[in-house]
């Protein structure tokens, strides 16, 4: 018999337009005409908070959505266009109180200095609920939106050229995150002193140049924004293979993986933990979440029928990089607990249809996992780090 009960689950929801099924926008209640309004996003995040979820992620990209992995398409039957995810998160922050806000940022074409202060500021406007989900882009068309570099066109995922390109982009992303994190620490917490007697607003000995020198860029610092409320906001990344597992192991607080079953989950968690050891971070807490696309209804046949109806509208069966669950909230609760036993500490659920499957998570799944004693019944902390059981870290630059 195990002496300690398993840790409670952590649950996040991934928000992307009207949902992850390409025909989701055609469902009743999908509100596709409101996708570019604040009210739409506020309603989704408020619903997620009603379900006591740990955080929401907001998808983003530096080009239009596409049905192809590495090039744009010219489809007119799917949602195209999106708002900047950091600004969506900032817009809903004052309207929520507990839920974490984790927008996607693309490392490949952005300045780490700007990203660092943007997420620090999101942490201020949300009183300690900010994070980021870092991603790379290997799309040549997105590189052409910036005109600063070219990305070689990837023909096949498993070619040596593709691996070299992707490895390089992930290495750069790791440097990007390192700069973002150093800048968050570049002000000590008590650097602002407002000492009227000497006229000094700050104690400049508590501000630090970060002097990052990498293969792709160098950044001097310090940040223009003081250390955010959480000290270090959450860094997360989605990972499907060895190279991104290494990024998760080196740089993240929450890694999201896409195992097909419990065995694959156990194997992937072990690989990430080994990389974590190799990176010298073995003692640091690192969550590994499973990503699942979900279609939820009160009985499994209804859920299957709904997914089939969506597939018919889309003209093709739905596929995803993540496993797809179609069934009842109770069945999903069973699956999540089974996967937890293989080492996952939480899940990032991607609602097939936001208008339908998000409330099914908050009003269906959540009561099921609560009944099993596996999920919170009230928010227990005021910050995202607190919800994830992560302590506020010491500043790397502060004298011990």
């Amino acid at each position, binding site marked *: 018999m195990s002496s300690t009960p398993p840790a409670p689950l952590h649950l996040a929801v991934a928000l992307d337009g009207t949902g992850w099924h390409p*025909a989701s*926008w*055609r469902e009743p209640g*999908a509100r*596709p*005409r409101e*996708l*570019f*309004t*604040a009210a739409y996003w*506020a309603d989704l995040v408020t619903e997620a908070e009603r379900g006591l979820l740990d955080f929401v992620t907001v998808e983003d*990209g530096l*080009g*239009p959505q596409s049905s192809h992995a590495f090039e*744009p398409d010219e489809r*007119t*039957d799917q*949602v*195209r*266009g999106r*708002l*900047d995810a*950091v*600004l*969506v998160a*900032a*817009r*809903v922050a*004052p309207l929520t109180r507990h839920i974490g806000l984790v927008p996607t940022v693309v490392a490949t*074409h*952005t*300045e780490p*200095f*700007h990203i660092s*202060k*943007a997420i*620090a500021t999101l942490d*201020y*406007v949300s*009183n300690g609920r900010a994070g980021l989900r870092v991603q790379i882009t290997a799309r040549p*068309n997105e590189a*052409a*939106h910036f*005109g600063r570099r070219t990305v070689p066109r990837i023909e096949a995922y498993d070619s040596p050229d593709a691996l070299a390109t992707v490895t390089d982009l992930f290495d750069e992303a790791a440097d990007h995150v390192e700069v973002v994190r150093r800048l968050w620490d570049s*002000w000590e917490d008590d650097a602002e002193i*407002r000492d*009227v007697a*000497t*006229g000094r*607003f*700050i104690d*400049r000995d508590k*501000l630090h140049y970060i002097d990052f020198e990498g293969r*792709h860029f*160098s*950044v*001097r*610092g310090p940040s*223009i924004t*003081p250390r955010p409320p959480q000290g270090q906001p959450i860094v997360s990344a989605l990972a499907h293979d060895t190279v991104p597992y290494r990024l998760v192991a080196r740089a993240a607080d929450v890694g999201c993986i896409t195992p097909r079953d419990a065995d694959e989950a156990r194997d992937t968690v072990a690989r990430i933990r080994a990389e974590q050891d190799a990176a010298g971070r073995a003692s640091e807490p690192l969550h590994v979440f499973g990503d699942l696309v979900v279609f939820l209804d009160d009985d499994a046949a209804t859920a299957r029928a709904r997914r089939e109806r969506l597939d018919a509208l889309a003209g093709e069966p739905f596929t995803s990089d993540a496993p797809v669950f179609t069934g009842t909230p109770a069945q999903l609760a069973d699956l999540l607990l089974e996967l937890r036993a293989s080492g996952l500490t939480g899940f990032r659920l991607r609602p097939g249809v936001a208008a339908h499957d998000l409330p099914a998570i908050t009003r269906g799944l959540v009561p099921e996992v609560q009944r099993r004693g596996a999920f919170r019944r009230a928010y227990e902390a005021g910050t995202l780090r607190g919800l994830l059981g992560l302590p506020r870290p010491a500043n790397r630059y502060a004298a011990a």
Partner: protein
Amino acid sequence: MTKPLKQIHLAAHFPGVNNTTVWSDPRAGSHIEFSSFAHFARTAERAKFDFLFLAEGLRLREQGGQIYDLDVVGRPDTFTVLAALAAVTEHLGLTGTINSTFNEPYEVARQFASLDHLSGGRAAWNVVTSWDAFTGENFRRGGFLPQQERYSRAKEFLATAHELFDSWRGDEILADQETGRFLSDAKAGAFVHSGRHFDIHGRFNVPRSPQGRPVIFQAGDSDEGREFAAAEADAIFSRHGTLEAGRAFYSDVKSRLAKYGRGRDQLLILPAATFALADTDAEAEELAREVRRQQVSGATALRHLEFVWNRDLSAYDPDGPLPDIDPDIGEDHISQGRAQVRMYRDPLATAREWRELAEANRWSIRDLVIHTGNRQNFVGSPATLARTIDAFVQADASDGFILVPHLTPTGLDEFADKVVPLLQERGVYRTEYEGTTLRDHLGLAHPDGRRTERAAS
């Protein structure tokens, strides 16, 4: 015939990182916490101001090789704060200063279009340029831009951003759930820009926002800056606060509009203005003196003298006479990250002039810095301020003012409560917002009227 009364435009500048901002006052609040921004924005909206204005600086200032520590230091990210403020206000315009040197058009256009969507049409962009390698050390490209090219890049940056904004006409999103057509145009957002500074093409991924394009501000004062504003901007954030200088600037810039086919009301002139407000004129004068002393401590006075002397003066007594040594006129400047020091084109002459002034008036270093620094633009009772501001606007010294209070976040409260009602009584200031977008508040047309340059090809 009498000229019809001009309506006054007012806006609120969040107190910045100059010594104008008095942080030593016990009432001074945080410059970082969102509650300060929310208080400031709500006050501005209660006073029916056109917009809130945020400045920006992308590297902490240094003097003598060390981070300058006597003024407010640090600020949050402009876009992120403005997006959050959109949640706690309904009408107030949201103006952000964003640099065209250390950003790329695709990303900035996405951010402004997103902010405009998320605020229901209240976004504005104060386009600034910089070139210094000092700031560049925080960015991937470093200090890559020669000084003489900064306006050339800024112009092309703005033109490119406009091409991106205009790459969606505004009617592409059908979202027809019955027919399954989300877009009416498979090429929505397509753009090609090929120029000296930017060579980019592809698809912009933010549909057209409520204002079409954000309102464009320009802040430079050089001849090149004025010309740029006359050609491109909807409003100028200027620094000519006196009646005479304001009228000269106003007349100069407005006269440049015709050659770009623009009317005089298509570019608003909005100078920054500080103020000291009290119940009576005498009390306001006293307050103004007191605030000036708070703004210029002995330590600050020495550091400001260093802007001209360009050498370490920390050994001098701020309550004593000016240094008898001459300024260092070498290439490197003791102060970095500060535009102000470029004002002193001939430091030897300035030093000579200041020594004479100080001797004639028996001023100490601190007295000198207080007297030669900027006095508040408006000092007086509520009635005096309302009358003076109105007089400036009716005399074409400006179209209104961007008020810069010295206290965060309550520095506008009294102005909102006491001066605004008097302006309303004079019939020169709105009592309610008439429209919903910032263009509405500023009386600017929606840009679709002049959208001709990107015909389908």
